[in-house]
């Protein structure tokens, strides 16, 4: 019996090997593959993937990368590290990609980085992972310069949130934060920023995903009778928590992280309760290319980009493909990663984030020049750890979307953060 099984297994393995060989030999004329590992089975993950594909379509429309058509192979992470790492490994080993876009959750991006990207020398660009653990890993030299993310470190968001509280004269603030790496980081940073501005944090309460009710958490946040509420939450839990907060008589003075910049949140909570709710974000609407992104997005998807990480996903994919163009054909992951500074060079020629921008970047890069990418989140600039700092905005909800309340340039943000420390 066991011998039969052995034969069967052998046959199975041989059959599978043949299938794989067949795929490997059937290569297209000129097709550059890139990999994307994103949580497409999660409601807010799908638009992030759509946005990345949108960028790839535009780049192909402008003539592709190094004359080749770009094919983005999209794999779902299911927000499960095992599945995400396996998908990334398959993309690198079976499809030979030199560039990975993703993942979203830091808990998935981190094992992909340490057990796939770095060992295989593949560049990894994340739109949305925010954990400070990446900065630490980069400081220790663990990323080999292969890691970039377009999500500004949580520090900017926290500092601007604290500034909103100061400007509005709130003396006491309660915090509700998502109980994950991002939320815990945000809570730690903004609590520190609040206290250095002399604002008292009455209570900081963690919100776990998917609870039927947040009454206990909200009651405990209410107990200090704060002037304002800080929300470091995602739309689903945010809606549930804010509804309970308001129904229990909590204040309408709210400060929101960019994750709540969502139509769903506005509609489900109700505009009449959000007149005194201020949001923070790291986008830069003063740059024409950011408006251009909004218009392009509307044109393509028929609605304004709302939902976390869309502008970041757009920039992540565009910058990665620009770097790929700059590195030339058949570049390895580290060669592509090395070109990122050349396409986000503050002294370079400004280019827009669209079909024409990519085409003009191609000419400049081919003649040895450098370009300054002006994208959906402003003039993206990475530091040596692969982190971005960014200009910031304060925004409010309106009947039709959001409007800007205040704009802080990169220098203003940096100065303000320096004044806190």
């Amino acid at each position: 019996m066991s011998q039969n099984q052995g034969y069967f297994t052998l046959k199975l393995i041989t059959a599978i090997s043949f299938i794989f060989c067949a795929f490997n030999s059937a290569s297209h004329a000129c097709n550059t593959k890139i990999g994307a590992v994103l949580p497409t089975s999660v409601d807010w993950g799908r638009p992030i993937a759509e946005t990345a594909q949108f960028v790839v379509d535009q780049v192909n429309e402008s003539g592709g990368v190094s004359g080749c058509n770009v094919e983005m192979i999209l794999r779902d992470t299911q927000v499960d590290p095992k599945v995400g790492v396996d998908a990334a490994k398959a993309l690198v080993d079976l499809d030979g990609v030199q560039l990975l876009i993703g993942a979203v959750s830091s808990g998935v991006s981190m094992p992909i980085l340490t057990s796939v990207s770095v060992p295989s020398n593949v560049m990894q660009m994340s739109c949305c992972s925010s954990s400070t653990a990446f900065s630490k890993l980069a400081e220790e030299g663990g990323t080999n310069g292969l890691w970039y993310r377009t999500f500004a470190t949580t520090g900017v968001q926290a500092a601007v949130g604290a500034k909103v509280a100061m400007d509005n004269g709130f003396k006491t603030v309660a915090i509700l934060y998502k109980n994950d790496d991002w939320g815990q980081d945000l809570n730690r940073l903004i609590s520190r920023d609040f206290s250095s501005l002399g604002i008292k944090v009455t209570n900081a309460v963690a919100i776990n995903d998917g609870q039927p009710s947040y009454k206990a958490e909200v009651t405990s946040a209410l107990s200090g009778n704060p002037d304002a509420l800080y929300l470091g939450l995602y739309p689903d839990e945010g809606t549930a928590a804010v509804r309970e907060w308001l129904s229990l008589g909590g204040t309408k003075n709210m400060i929101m992280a960019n994750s709540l910049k969502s139509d769903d949140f506005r509609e489900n909570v109700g505009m009449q309760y959000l007149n005194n709710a201020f949001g923070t974000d790291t986008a830069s609407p003063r740059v024409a290319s950011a408006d251009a992104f909004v218009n392009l997005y509307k044109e393509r998807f028929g609605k304004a980009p709302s939902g976390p990480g869309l502008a970041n996903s757009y920039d992540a994919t565009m910058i990665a493909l620009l770097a790929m163009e700059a590195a030339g054909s058949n570049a390895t992951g580290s060669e592509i990663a090395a070109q990122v500074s050349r396409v986000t060079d503050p002294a370079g020629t400004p280019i827009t984030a669209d079909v024409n921008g990519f085409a003009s970047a191609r000419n400049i890069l081919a003649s040895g020049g450098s370009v300054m990418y002006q994208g959906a989140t402003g003039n993206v600039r990475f530091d040596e750890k692969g982190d971005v700092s960014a200009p910031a905005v304060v925004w409010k909800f309106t009947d039709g979307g959001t409007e800007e309340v205040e704009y802080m340039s990169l220098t203003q943000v940096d100065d303000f953060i320096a004044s806190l420390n």
Partner: protein
Amino acid sequence: MIGFLSYLVFFTTIASILAIAALGLNLQWGNTGLFNGGVVAFFGAGAYGTLLLGGAPQSDHIGGFDLLYPIALLGGMIVAGLLAWIVGILTIRLRHDYLAISTFGVAVAFENLMRNAQWLAGGAKGLRGFERPLREFLGDGFLYNVSFLIIVLFILLSVYFFLELLVSSPFGRLLRAIREDEYAARSLGKNPTNIRLTAFVVGSIVMGLAGGLYGAFYAFVSPQDILPMLTFQIWAMLIVGGAGNNKGAIFGAFLIWAAWTSSGWLLSRFAPIETQLYTGSIQYVLIGVVIVTMLLWRPQGLFPERLVISQPGER
């Protein structure tokens, strides 16, 4: 071809680690009839225990004792065993669905503890700073993964033979007696309570071993690694493979993990471009269909339990 081989090595490593966990569950459910709904807690205890003991010191939480990897792995198994012993003592009177629910609760509590106790293991951002064993000599590439796979396969086989020996011994007969009729076993002067506890702890130590290998392979563990989904995956492996049969547990682990990963790969490759974004959801449906079909068509699993003669000498 080297790419395919490299991926195959990677895949086999993870599948073998999951197979070890499935073997642990098979001892508990397949042989003793203990419904452990919190596999992930013991798996996680092993992973966290190993990385805390074997990792480099970190400023923001305890741990990082830089112990030699085999010692750290042993420590991880002890942590998992201790947790199982405590849970076992507390729930020893519970049977079937009650045990399932309370162990499930333990797993959720364990995940929440790891998510919130930043002083213990870094909280939600996970446990980092573990140096993979022998990395200086083997580098980071293919050679390392092959060596790691060989070690994992060796451990998988050792666990398999150990459990085969255990279930074909008089002790194994006792486990099945308790599974089938606890009162009958008691009437023969056996102490089912102690035996159940022993089987529960041993099975959990095996799960902890799997966790310790898993953590070392990724050199990272975070609360996202220990969500209830993993418990579900390991149960699916055992049910499809065949509860009560160690070969079945291993085969089921490879089969389910292959289905899990290859469905994503195939969909990303062959699904029409407009459905690409929905492949994640389609994948969930496909996996669910496979498990339900299996339960309807062959509830005893691909490798049903064989009746074992406990004393080979009398064959």
